[in-house]
């Protein structure tokens, strides 16, 4: 093996501490070292040019560069090797600047240490194998799951870039939860007014042809991997042709069935054929087969008879299983609220007049169960409202985190209560007040200036809601230990934001993990919060963490960005060769490797005799290599032979 060694002087940065003459002399004795050449600045354009030319003339089989950290210029030097016709992986860097010259004052010691590190590099590089990036043809279409603000903006952005998007929404309506609110913090913008233009773009905009919208649909299966997923989607029939429907609502009136309306969280009832709420898009009713008399064997056709358009109500529609190819998947399935029944002291579901914040949003909404009148669905207007912030939040027994949006909407409630029923007493019970952001303070200030608002700080367990003659009674012990009691006609709970309902099942189908709180787990909390741990599966919105609409939409856009750069037009997917590979003849299929792989890159295909590593999913960490009890897994570029040779040589 002919190995060429280049020593970078780095000006005097390295030579000040390392004796290049002695180094050259010692290294020249090493078996396999064909030559040792000092260079002034190898990283400079001149230096790289020299290297390229010299490699062409010397034609070494392997190269060691002793210079600064490989974290600085390894990639650049690999490109030089490539340009000179060598395999770029025939290079090993010995870090003699950051890890020797700069940290070892004595020349004698520094030179010895440098010599050892370079010997290690030379011994290792002799065992390097040629490695090649491989390319894979990919599907550039995208499946977006969830049509809330994050999913809608993501789908729209991708469609505008010319990508085909399949937008899978489990409810009959687009817009997610915010479309059901009347106004939004921080500036009381009308929620439907904000989301409807986006929905309109998705449904009828110039790029809408790129978006296939599947409502009442859920992802039920997934095969394949980044670049080539096969997604199975199960769609429940709507029994109404949304394309042909004119949205007149004639079909709804004659329906004789009345069931609890889940779109208003059970605060009122709806017909078996219904629109979720006024203004819902797509503007077409859906027929709830579970509630419809036809499902019970009765031959009712009242809705179809009332429909003025031929063949729009279709009783013969059946559940569909839809298969779609996609290169990437975006999970934007939103959030849930902590189940307030787990906080029995707050009286939810037991004491009349206690609502969750989502229920209260609907009570405030003009298309909600009270038509926007602030009153109990079956009662009178309140004279006092207690808003209990931090319900289940900042509580080690329930959810230790702050959801970060509740104070904002609680002060929005304060504003709306005072606007709708001036003079109504509003009691804010809070553990902490949190409303970061450049606009968010204004609603808080507004609440502080409301002469009818009171603020009380409590600690976990310090608030108890019980039934009372005059409504609900809130007994409290404030943070200073003072006890008191107020009576409120309505109590609004602001529960901790949790992972999406249905997140468990979806996580299982996708293989994308959830964190200890039930949110989809990001690749990195700050740098890659819109990526799951599975390549090609991205996260957008509150399914990843509690967040407001601004952040959710930004994440939707970020996910679109990942897709557009990762599955770029006119480019194949490049697979890095530093991955693990399995020697099937030595594999005992004990599945240890699969259990330690954080990326689900290892599978055990029945047609194979052993474990199989998907090079696309593998990140090359080598954990499986170290874990394999049979020594059947090889870590490319970090093989045992290479590491052991390096250990031996640095100690020689």
């Amino acid at each position, binding site marked *: 093996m002919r190995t060429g060694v280049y020593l970078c002087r780095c000006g005097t940065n390295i030579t000040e501490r390392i004796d290049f003459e002695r180094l050259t002399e010692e290294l020249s004795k090493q078996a396999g070292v064909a030559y040792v050449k000092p260079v002034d600045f190898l990283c400079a354009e001149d230096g790289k040019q020299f290297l390229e030319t010299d490699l062409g003339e010397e034609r070494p089989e392997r190269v060691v560069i002793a210079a600064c*950290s490989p974290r600085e210029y390894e990639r650049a030097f690999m490109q030089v090797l490539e340009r000179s016709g060598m395999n770029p992986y025939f290079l090993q860097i010995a870090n003699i600047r950051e890890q020797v010259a700069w*940290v070892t004052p004595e020349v004698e*010691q520094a030179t010895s240490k440098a010599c050892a590190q370079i010997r290690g590099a030379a011994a290792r590089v002799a065992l390097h194998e040629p490695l090649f990036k491989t390319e894979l043809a990919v599907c550039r279409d995208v499946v977006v799951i969830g049509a809330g603000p994050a999913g809608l903006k993501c789908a729209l952005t991708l469609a505008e870039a010319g990508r085909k998007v399949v937008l899978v929404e489990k409810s009959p309506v687009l817009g997610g939860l915010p479309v059901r609110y009347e106004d939004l913090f921080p500036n009381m913008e009308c929620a439907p007014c904000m989301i409807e233009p986006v929905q309109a773009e998705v449904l009828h905009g110039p790029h809408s042809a790129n978006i296939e919208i599947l409502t009442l649909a859920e992802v039920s299966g997934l095969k394949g991997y980044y670049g080539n997923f096969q997604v199975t989607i199960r769609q429940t029939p709507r029994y109404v042709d949304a394309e042909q429907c004119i949205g007149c609502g004639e079909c709804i009136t004659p329906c004789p069935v009345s069931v609890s309306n889940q779109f208003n969280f059970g605060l009122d009832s709806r017909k078996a054929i219904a629109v979720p709420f006024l203004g819902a898009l797509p503007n077409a009713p859906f027929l709830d087969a579970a509630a419809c008399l036809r499902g019970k064997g009765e031959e009712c056709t009242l809705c179809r008879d009332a429909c003025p358009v031929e063949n729009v109500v279709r009783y013969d529609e059946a559940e569909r299983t839809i298969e779609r190819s996609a290169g990437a998947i975006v999970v934007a399935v939103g959030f849930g609220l902590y189940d307030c029944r787990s906080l029995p002291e707050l009286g939810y579901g037991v004491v009349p007049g206690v609502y969750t914040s989502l229920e209260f949003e609907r009570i405030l909404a003009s298309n909600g169960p009270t038509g926007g009148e602030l009153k109990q669905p079956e009662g009178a207007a309140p004279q006092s409202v207690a808003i209990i912030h931090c319900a289940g939040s900042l509580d080690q027994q329930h959810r230790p985190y702050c959801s970060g949006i509740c104070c904002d909407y609680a002060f929005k409630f304060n504003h709306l209560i005072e606007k709708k029923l001036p003079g109504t007493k509003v009691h804010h019970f809070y553990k902490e007040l949190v409303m970061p952001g450049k606009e968010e303070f204004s609603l808080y200030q507004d609440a502080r200036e409301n002469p009818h608002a009171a603020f009380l700080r409590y600690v976990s367990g310090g608030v108890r809601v019980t039934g009372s003659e005059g409504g609900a009674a809130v007994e409290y012990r404030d943070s200073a230990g003072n006890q008191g009691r107020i009576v409120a006609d309505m109590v609004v709970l602001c529960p901790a934001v949790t992972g999406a309902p249905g997140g468990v099942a979806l996580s299982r189908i996708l293989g994308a993990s959830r964190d200890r709180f039930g949110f989809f787990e990001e690749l990195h909390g700050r740098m890659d919060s819109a990526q799951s741990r599975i390549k090609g599966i991205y996260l957008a919105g509150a399914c990843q963490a509690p967040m407001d609409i601004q952040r959710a939409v930004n994440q939707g856009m970020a996910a679109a960005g990942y897709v557009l750069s990762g599955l770029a037009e006119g480019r194949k997917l490049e697979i890095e060769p530093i991955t693990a590979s399995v020697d099937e003849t030595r594999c005992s299929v004990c599945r240890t490797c699969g259990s330690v792989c954080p990326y689900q890159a290892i599978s055990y295909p029945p047609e194979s005799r052993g474990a199989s590593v998907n090079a696309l999913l593998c990140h090359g960490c080598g954990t499986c290599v170290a874990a394999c009890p049979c020594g059947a897994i090889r870590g490319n570029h970090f093989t045992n032979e290479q590491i052991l040779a390096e*250990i031996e040589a640095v100690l020689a």
Partner: protein
Amino acid sequence: MIQIQTHPETQRVADSFEPKIVGFLCNWCSYAGADKAGGAQLSYPPNIRIIRVMCSGRVDAQHILQAYRNGADGVLILACHAGDCHYQEGNYRATERHRMLLRLLSQFGIEEARCRFDYVSAGEGEKFVRVVSETVEAVRALGPLTRPSASGG
């Protein structure tokens, strides 16, 4: 299997003894932490020989045993802090393996201080220097690791 014992008369040579330490550093945190120490020109004992691995989870017991066999008096395994692993949980695997290896090493009479596991982040140049210095001193105090011949016992 290699068999290694600590020399009974180690204290006598401790003063003139320069231990050899092999440090396995993960690419993303600890290796960068070592670079950080370099960038800050913090000096530390030259006794360490650094082996870069992509993840501390790649470090295998046989690498550590090989280091002892080839003359190392001590081994350092440095990883990302808990929760910071570039590969999610490789550092956790590494701690598990380290704990297991310590039990094995004790059966060969190799002291725990000769096989140290610690966490050094990319920003912790000073901690890297401290950990290396402490390890060198601890191993120096223990004296050289003596290796009976392969047939001996």
